[in-house]
């Protein structure tokens, strides 16, 4: 058996570290933190999330707040929104209070520095960025945003994700009125003498919430959530298999500075009004790809058999190498291996018969629409 390479850098403990260990989590290094990778097992946690509700600790992610010279108020948020639009391709100034949008920080070549959620949180613009690159994001924002824009890192806050078809009814019982939120909206609630900033969003393809809570109160909240028998804790392993099934890209793997939003099939995040108007870093190169079309594109692959193709596996059409897998694994929901790959445009159409090379074997794979497992977001009753 081969071991994972060990990391020598000191790891940060999550506010819920002992909580995870007490519940049998196996902790692994990830993004500079000791993170729970699994409790009961990835397949069981994946399936529980699809059928009931799971609690994920994603406190490693960066929670940032931006305000302008007017301070913590609507005017300050509007100033921050305008400034932020210089660094990403989404329309932020038109976001109403409590609305959120998926976007990407782009570099000057149109490469993706990170993907993130941007919310008009009322008195500020709130960002949730990937844990693995949060320090780079902060440096990038600080370097390129005007000095008058205040950037606050809410590093004393934890972030819990409650995901699954029963997440809505569970959270409504615990925190009344959260059920009124619809997909991609957020609001402030009170619970147990503290504030919760609740967003109806997530990374599993299921209905659910991300809940920002002060580190001092996160254990009480986690206890209250898993006290409901519909909720079980789940780890990073299931989070990864769920997001893969949901067709959601993972930063550092499926999207990087070497990929652009068009090739990544994230054109939906290029707000129409801004595609021509531009005014954001990387617009020129992105506009060129939009106009000329990408040469490679991120697609989904469903493999025959049971052997998964992992990141780095080469994709072939006959003898010709036409792409590479950027993430792959075994889908517990579908019971077969699935993957995301960048393949040449000429082999990217749905149904194209390709092969993935794994340890000298060629595994038949079919280009398939994503998500692999349909999204079930709550858009209102």
């Amino acid at each position: 058996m081969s071991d994972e390479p060990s990391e020598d850098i000191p790891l940060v403990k999550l506010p819920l570290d002992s909580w995870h260990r007490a519940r049998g989590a196996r902790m692994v290094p990830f993004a500079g933190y000791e993170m729970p990778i699994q409790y009961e097992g990835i397949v069981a946690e994946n399936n529980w999330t699809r059928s009931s509700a799971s609690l994920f600790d994603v406190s490693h992610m960066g929670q940032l707040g931006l305000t302008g010279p007017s301070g913590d108020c609507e005017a300050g948020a509007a100033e921050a929104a305008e400034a932020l639009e210089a660094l990403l391709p989404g329309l932020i100034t038109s976001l109403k209070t409590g609305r959120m949008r998926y976007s990407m920080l782009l570099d000057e070549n149109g490469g993706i520095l990170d993907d993130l959620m941007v919310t008009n949180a009322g008195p500020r613009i709130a960002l949730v960025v990937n844990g693995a690159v949060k320090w780079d994001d902060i440096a990038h924002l600080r370097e390129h945003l005007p000095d008058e824009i205040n950037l606050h890192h809410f590093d004393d806050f934890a972030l819990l994700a409650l995901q699954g078809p029963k997440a809505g009814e569970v959270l409504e019982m615990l925190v009344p009125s959260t059920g009124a939120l619809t997909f991609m909206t957020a609001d402030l609630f009170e619970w147990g003498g503290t504030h919760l900033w609740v967003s109806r969003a997530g990374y599993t393809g299921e209905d659910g919430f991300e809940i920002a809570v002060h580190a001092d109160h996160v254990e009480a909240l986690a206890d209250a959530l898993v006290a409901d028998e519909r909720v079980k804790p789940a780890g990073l392993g299931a989070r990864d298999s769920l997001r893969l099934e949901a067709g959601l890209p993972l930063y550092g793997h499926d999207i990087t500075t070497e990929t652009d939003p068009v090739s990544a099939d994230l054109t939906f995040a290029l707000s129409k009004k801004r595609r021509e108007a531009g005014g954001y870093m990387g617009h020129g190169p992105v506009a060129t790809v939009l106009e000329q079309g990408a040469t490679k594109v991120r697609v989904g692959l469903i493999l025959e058999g049971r052997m998964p193709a992992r990141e780095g596996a080469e994709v072939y059409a006959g003898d010709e190498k036409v792409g590479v897998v950027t993430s792959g694994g075994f889908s517990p929901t579908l019971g077969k291996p699935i993957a995301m790959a960048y393949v040449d445009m000429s082999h990217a159409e749905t149904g194209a018969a390709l092969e993935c090379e794994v340890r000298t074997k060629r595994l038949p794979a079919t280009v398939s629409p994503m998500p692999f497992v349909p999204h079930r977001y709550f858009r209102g009753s």
Partner: protein
Amino acid sequence: MPRYFTDEHEWIDVEDDEATVGITDYAQEQLGDIVFVELPEAGTALDKGGDAAVVESVKAASDVYAPISGEVTEGNGALEEEPALVNSSPEEDGWFFKMTVGDASELEGLMDEAAYKEFVEGL
């Protein structure tokens, strides 16, 4: 029938000149849900410490090494249909392959059950 263990968490049962190889309960616990096992074909020559099989969990692929040198005589066909046997019965029904004992002296460097238990407790 003596059973030996490697520090890479394989076990090997030796009966006369044939051996059966699998991964330990500790190993399957670390790997989590096994979804696929790639076994060597009969006739494959194995070198001690060399790649012998690959075990795929939901999350990752891991190599399984040959505890000793020899030739593969049989793979466990049951794992094709039910790779989860490695989780449910790692040290019995979930065996990986059988092989000849090329050089019995190679067994001397392996751990016995008590030594392996102590080794795992130290991890």
